[in-house]
């Protein structure tokens, strides 16, 4: 029983860290229609910033400032926000699939920079011993993880409430207007390029926050953590949960991560030991099957976008 609870706490930490990134992507894709295929790159920027700011000093590698955890989180968000600003200024004139290709390329570039820029990232060896703040507050992995879960849950909750407020505000309506018809939005005196840039930067800052929380939890970062499959996972979470709905984004993160990891558990229970080594393929099939079935029956995601009609229209 204790084991199950301990595992669930661990599971929820990782799932909620993903949820923060999914919320960021939801702002970009769900509300603004920006196809960001470079999620892993912005996670990486946040993660490495966190590692450099809060990690212990080491020879021949930048960093070791041993700054507090909160400073690391803020720094990570600022760094990924700044990177998003620069990248956004260059690429946001591109639409849809062109933006997707550009951001995908950028994410791969960022990953390669992580591999090669040893002075900053430690190269392929990665950066070790990043402090986890919960280790100082309690003894034993269970209590420590509970504390970290509380921290991640509070942050994810703040992000959720904040996003709900801004997408419900006039700014949020402009986002949707830009998503639905840029020309119409511009004709009403809105500046679509500026709005797209704002949404892009804000969304990427959340991805940076997610990367930083991941590193703070695991205590280690390497380029291996940011392969393109991570972008695919975050996207799947958003699509399954329901884009343009922040509740859907969080639900998607929890469900997709549960399917992704739970399928391994189910297979290790059901498959006889003699053929377990071949079970990897079965797990991949199972994951794919569940996702396809979800999309067939709920094409707009588990919780789709709420139809918003102006309250004045009712009269």
């Amino acid at each position: 029983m204790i084991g199950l609870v301990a595992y669930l706490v661990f599971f929820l930490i990782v799932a909620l860290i993903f949820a923060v990134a999914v919320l960021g992507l939801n702002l970009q894709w769900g509300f603004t229609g920006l196809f960001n295929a470079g999620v892993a790159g912005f996670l990486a920027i946040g993660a490495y910033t966190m590692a450099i700011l809060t990690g212990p000093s080491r020879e021949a590698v930048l960093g070791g400032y041993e700054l507090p955890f909160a400073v690391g989180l803020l720094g990570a968000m600022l760094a990924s926000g700044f990177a998003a600003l620069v990248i956004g200024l260059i690429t946001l004139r591109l639409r849809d699939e062109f933006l997707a290709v550009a951001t995908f390329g950028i994410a791969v570039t960022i990953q390669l920079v992580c591999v090669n820029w040893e002075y900053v990232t430690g190269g392929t060896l990665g950066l070790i011993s990043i402090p986890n703040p919960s280790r100082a507050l309690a003894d034993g992995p269970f209590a420590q993880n509970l504390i970290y879960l509380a921290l991640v849950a509070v942050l994810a909750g703040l992000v959720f409430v904040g996003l709900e407020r801004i997408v419900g505000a006039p700014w949020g309506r402009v986002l949707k207007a830009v998503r639905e018809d840029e020309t119409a939005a511009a004709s009403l005196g809105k500046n679509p390029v500026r709005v797209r840039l704002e949404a892009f930067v804000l969304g990427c800052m959340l991805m940076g926050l997610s990367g930083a929380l991941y590193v703070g939890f695991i205590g280690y970062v390497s380029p291996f953590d940011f392969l393109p499959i991570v972008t695919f996972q975050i996207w799947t979470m958003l699509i399954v949960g329901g884009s343009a709905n922040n509740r859907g984004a969080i639900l998607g993160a929890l469900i997709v991560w549960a399917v992704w990891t739970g399928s391994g558990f189910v297979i290790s229970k059901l498959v006889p030991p003699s053929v377990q080594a071949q079970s990897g393929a079965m797990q991949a099939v199972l994951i794919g099957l569940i996702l396809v079935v979800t999309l067939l029956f709920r094409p707009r995601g588990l919780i789709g976008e709420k139809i918003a009609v102006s309250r004045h229209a009712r009269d």
Partner: protein
Amino acid sequence: MIRRVRAAAAGLAAIAATFAMAGAASAVECPVKLGAVLPVSGPMGQVGERIAQTGQFAVELFNEAGGVKGCPVEYVLRDTQGQPTVGVDAAKSLVELEGVPALVGAISSGVSLPILTSVAVPSKVVQISCCSSSETFTQLAKEGKTDGLWFRTYATNRSQSAMAALLATKAGFKKTAVIYVNTDFGVGLANRFKEDVVKLGGGLGEVVAYNESQQSYRAEVTKALQGNPDSLFLIAFPVDGATITREWLALGGTDNLIVNNSLRSDDYFDAVGRQYLKNLIGYDSAQPRLPSVATFNELFEKRFDSPPNGPGLHSVFDAVTVTLLAMEQADELTGPAIRDAIRAVTKEGGTEVHPGPDGIRRAKELIAAGKPIRYVGATGALSFDENGDVQAPKMVWKLIDGKNTEVEYYSTEDIARLIAKLDN
């Protein structure tokens, strides 16, 4: 604020303690579980599958000899898909839901390390890897952050750089350039080599990294040629290695080549042309000349109808077997007890025991009689140093009349002496 956080922390700790006490009953329950976290799908899937099967095979042999503490051993395998997040989750679920006291895995260092720092060490579970070669583990162990729970049965890069430096200086080279693959493996090896070759009295030329799968490496080769080195240490894999070697020779580089173990491959020799590789010299891990190795090879062939050729097969077999022996030896099946028992069953001076059901039965009799044992397995006698690393014997090879031929053999003891000389 701080007070409130402390109070909350204390409250949580109290809850945790209550839970922990509920689970404290510690008689051995059958079956005894051993966790394995390996990539059986994804980019490492093919290699991982063979390794996972060999781990399963080691468990089967142990069960034939009666299992651990009278219980059959259940091998619970979970897939990492080659992804750190998936691997970490799999490891945590093995520890918490299956209650395994020891984990075998993973393959890539980028997956093994997050498992170690976020699951194995906090939960006090032994982690033993067949294949992770990164020096980061040694560093972490030196900083005291593994609590001794980390072991690996794969010889680290440490001996590789020492061998290369030895080859360079024995041949009398005065200035050795280095071209290395930019992965954790290549970086670690090249950095070590820089120190080792100087300590043995050699000299260093340019040290140049290359990224995998490029069409041409002219820029890297040109840079490495600066200062007219009299030899080249090439750390590469066959396809890129052949491209680099051809360009190196074409641009007037010397044919005094020293290469790492991955280039001991016909693909490489044929792609470059054997006639150009007369002065090539290389090192590789050698299988120790021991009966225990032959026993493993025979058992493996009988079970799989093919010889155990492939990365990680010998080392995963030993990783699993030594962990199970340690479980038999340990007073209780907890991580720290197994950690100490792994030291006990590999200690010099114990009665040697070999792989296979007969060897295991004998080991169990000796353990039951309270006598010390020393496991000598598929990779020879495992002797873990204080960081959980092992050394393996090495051999030196050349192409003689175009044929890949072993010319020298260095035993584990020779290698240990060489490294001791370099590290002091």
